[in-house]
């Protein structure tokens, strides 16, 4: 994986495996350019954001937020619909790293999982505006439509047991008979 723009398309299983390395996917992919393939976030900001998002939706049998593309979702929106939130993100991410360095001597992405939980809790108390935004945007990116860069391969919908693509509808519907019961 030389670049996150690699032409090799990962299967879901490969992707989940790759994602299990944590933020590594992000870090590896973006070494050549300051912003890599992203539209707004810098490498450092993306790493910090991934640490926060992955505490909001951690990995278990199903992908974490960043593994499911939430960072891509948020980055794209910060360059488009959520331009108005850029300053809140810039300041909030900086603050998260500052708190982490202050308490643990390292940036948030490098802290342990329990330490990250502590920092995210601190952010929730100290910068509610930023926390609420990140939480909402993380949930949007994870549970919303894959068309916006998150919810890769409809991972969350499959997790919830929603048929994807849906089985009800045109494919199973015979218009000559009237509604199915």
């Amino acid at each position, binding site marked *: 994986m030389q670049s996150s723009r690699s032409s090799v398309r990962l299967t879901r299983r490969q992707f989940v495996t790759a994602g299990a390395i944590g933020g590594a996917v992000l870090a590896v992919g973006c070494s050549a350019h300051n912003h890599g393939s992203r539209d707004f976030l810098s490498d450092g900001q993306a790493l910090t954001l991934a640490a926060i998002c992955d*505490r909001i939706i951690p990995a278990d049998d199903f992908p974490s937020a960043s593994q499911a593309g939430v960072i891509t979702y948020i980055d794209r929106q910060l360059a488009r619909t959520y331009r108005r939130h850029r300053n809140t993100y810039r300041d909030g991410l900086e603050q998260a790293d500052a708190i982490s360095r202050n308490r643990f001597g390292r940036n948030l992405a490098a802290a342990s999982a329990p330490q990250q939980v502590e920092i995210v809790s601190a952010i929730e108390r100290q910068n509610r505006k930023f926390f609420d935004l990140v939480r909402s945007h993380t949930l*949007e990116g994870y549970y919303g*439509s894959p068309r916006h860069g998150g919810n890769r391969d409809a991972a969350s919908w499959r997790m919830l047991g929603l048929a994807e693509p849906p089985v009800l*509808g045109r494919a199973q*519907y015979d218009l000559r008979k*009237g509604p199915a*019961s």
Partner: protein
Amino acid sequence: MKRVNVVIVGAGAAGGIVAKELSTAGLSVVLLERGKWYTPNDCRKDDLRNQRTTVLGNAFGPEDEGNPRVLVDAEGVPHIMLPSEGGYQNNAACVGGGTLSYGAMAWRFLPQDFRMRSIYGAPAGSSLEDWPISYDDLEPYYEKAEYEIGISGDDSGTPFHGPRRRPLPMPPLPPNREFQILEPAAKRLGLRPFPIPMARNSVPYNGRGPCMRCRWCVGFACEVDAKNGSQNTVIPVALATGNCELRTECIAREILTDDRGRARGVAYYDANGRLQEQLSDIVVVSACAIESARLLLNSKSRLFPDGLGNRRDQVGRNLQGHHYTGAIGFFDFDTYDDVGPGASIAISDYNHGTPGLCGGGMLANEFIRLPIQMVDRMPAGTPQWGLPHKQAMRSFYKRNIVVMGPTQPIPTADARVTLDPTVRDKWGMLVARISGNVHAQTYEIGLVQAQRAEAWLKEAGAASTVISAGKSTTVYAGQHQAGTCRMGDDPQGSVVNRNCQLHDVDNVFVIDSSVHVTNGGFNPALTIMAVAYFASAALVGNWKGTGFRS
């Protein structure tokens, strides 16, 4: 531009019907719509960008850029709102208006809903009033709406409705699983449940096929065009007469008046932003409660320095919508069957008759919750983030039922639309400023309704429940916005007469939810449509203008 008989501003639920009724009666009509004309291909199933979940914008207008409004909070502080933010109180801006993407519940108000003041008396501080017309006046027009727009359902199982001459033209959709769970529970409680009337084809009707029961319904354009709004019923009929021209992406700037104070047409910005004038004999304002009031207020002249039809400071007052309350129940078994639209069963037992309180509302199960719509609807005590939240999504996504309903708001004169003194839209027009609140008793009734919803869910076997009965600190008009150009016999307390004609200007009509004196305990779409048919019939009957009747 050629002078026409009528300019209608707004091609929504009401404007589309007025266009059809007047053009088929032989009047020449120009129908102005600020938005675009979408098709079933614009469904897109984008759960982050539609008319219900708008975090990435409204799919069917208006766009965030250049269309602000101002909301004044309870402390009197104004906030600029984008169309994608809740405080904006958006409906839609497109051909069909809200009816392109609505959930399509198609309720008749109850006879009592037109006589709220007579039945209950006006609570202190409220502007509760009777309509100048009755259920019986509207009944033939409800029927006309049901048949021309196309409504499915069956209210024979409940005594709580006004008399009707004909049954609905289509049977209800077959029950989904939530219906099957909730129906016996309601009956055990002594309630009278029945299928929700819907502007949705359950069988082929009006040249289009039936609902395919997908999960992308409320907030979306119907992919198979089985949802019935003005855009796929009356507007095509109006255009087919040859008497009606629809101009999309044209936003009205003001109603033009002559030196005697009568309207002579509408000035509007066309799709290229050029200012145009369309002269006419009659102007009909059908832009929905907030924008209709704004257009009148923006139509200032020497004779109407405070806005057209606003000599008595009534335009924009009595803004209301619905106070939605209810409960969510969490179950030990699957309640989800992926059969849209989801909303299926209702009761009207609680619309009236609660001792000490004015009115009430219907209660119904909610449309299918897409995953993003579930994230803040978790059992009590669920953490907002972390693994427990993710696990709760997995545990309860398919094991919950939401029952809620629109509590009939008790209006106040202070809940109102005015013009913001400084904020302008991208055309340079002053924007709507929303302030005030509905009467506090609305929230009392809302809480009682939520408790009733909870009791129904518990009877249905919910293992736990969470009530939703939050009190809004500002008026919440939203997609059910109504009341800003009240209909009444007395010009002192109303804006239009019973025929939706301005008291002050006899060739200007406001025909949309603005004229609702009260907004019922039901989704208002079918009542908007019935009033549009009623007012159109009066307009055509009284028309002595040039041309069609010698």
